């Protein structure tokens, strides 16, 4: 068991996500930075579906009531064990009675704490991920509170991982204040006028203070839509369309005033024009960004996006091999 002494700002149990229910309105939830989350699991010998803790800006203070192996990845942060600094992106041994405490994030937003065996909450619809809006999954469907007690799963076939095993610098996430974020064209991209199509991929956009697991609002130059008679069933605003499904990572611009990027807890469909979609590997990067950092969008083909996703998978397999080889 692990007792939550302080929960941090917004700490939830997450795994890879809840898949198969998108069509009936359930977003996938799951770790916002999937890469960091996967690396944390690898570092403690967990399978890729194990549940981890996701923190936001300020992580929790946790008291361990049993020995455990843990690993922390993601944002740059000071983490201490009984007051002594411990390294990130490294497999760390925790003894019964020790207290693990997070400082505030120095760069980036989210940390992933994997515990050998994984966090044992009841799977809901095939996943342990917390979907706070529906009070579903995770720890009682909510963010952690003081006094919560987290159970660790007993690992049936543990992979041995040497304590102190660390991920090389070039395979870690490095948060930056400006990032190139790659997008593929959206179904309704043609509704932007030509100047706005150009603006979307040439001007920077600033992450606003409204940015969470549901969506990121981004401020930038106003976008305008082609003039047309709104079709039957669509709202009256030029940014409205007849309801359609939204991809995760969809970029929309209600009334053209600001961009909204839908994240992993977002609504799965609605009546705003889907202008573009942030590619899955760059959602990891965006998830580590905050106000007032900036992004520039770069348009890539679907083939490139899929290749980059496949490259991320290969990079994770290489990391798993590396970690296992030094066990």
């Amino acid at each position, binding site marked *: 068991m692990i007792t939550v002494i302080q929960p941090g*700002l917004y700490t939830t149990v997450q795994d890879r996500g809840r898949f198969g229910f998108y069509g009936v309105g359930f977003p996938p939830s799951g770790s916002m930075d999937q890469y960091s989350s996967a690396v944390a699991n690898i570092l403690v010998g967990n399978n890729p579906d194990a549940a981890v803790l996701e923190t936001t800006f300020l992580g929790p203070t946790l008291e361990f009531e049993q020995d455990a192996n843990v690993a922390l990845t993601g944002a740059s942060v000071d983490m201490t064990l009984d007051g002594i600094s411990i390294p990130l992106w490294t497999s760390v041994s925790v003894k019964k009675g020790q207290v693990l405490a997070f400082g*505030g994030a120095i760069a980036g937003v989210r940390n992933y704490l994997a515990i050998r065996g994984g966090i044992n909450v009841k799977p809901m619809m095939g996943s342990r991920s917390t979907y706070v809006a529906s009070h579903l999954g995770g720890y009682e469907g909510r963010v952690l509170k003081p006094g919560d007690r987290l159970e660790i799963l007993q690992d049936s076939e543990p992979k041995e991982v040497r304590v102190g095993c660390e991920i090389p610098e070039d395979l870690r996430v490095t948060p930056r204040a400006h990032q190139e974020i790659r997008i593929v064209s959206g179904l309704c991209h043609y509704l932007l006028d030509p100047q706005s199509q150009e603006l979307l991929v040439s001007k920077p956009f600033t992450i606003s*203070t409204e940015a969470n697991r549901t969506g990121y609002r981004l401020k930038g130059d106003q976008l305008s839509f082609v003039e047309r008679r709104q079709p039957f069933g669509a709202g009256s605003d030029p940014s409205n369309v007849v309801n359609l499904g939204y991809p995760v990572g969809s970029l929309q611009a209600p009334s053209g005033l600001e961009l909204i990027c839908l994240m992993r807890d977002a609504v799965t469909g609605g009546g705003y024009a889907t202008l573009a979609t942030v590619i899955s590997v760059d959602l990891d990067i965006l998830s580590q960004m905050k106000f007032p950092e900036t992004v520039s969008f770069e348009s890539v083909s679907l083939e490139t996006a899929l290749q980059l996703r496949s490259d991320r998978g290969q990079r994770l397999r290489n990391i798993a091999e590396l970690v296992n080889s030094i066990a």
Partner: protein
Amino acid sequence: MSDTQEILAPFPGIFYRRTDPGSDPLVELGQEIAVGDVIALVEVMKMFHEVQSTIAGTVVEFCVEDGDAIAMGQALAKIATKL
């Protein structure tokens, strides 16, 4: 003798000096504060979080206006501490 230290924003958000628009500021300029006193609220991810002082002393300056968007690590207030 005194030394001036800054209270820094623990996370990005919107800075508020009052718990609601009609009430008095949580802390006034020139007020003596202790470690742990709530000096402001920051709205982040649709939640309000108290900013507690990490310093004991006298508030000599607020570095941001009520309602301003603040970045993580930005100075919020200057506190004069007695040496």
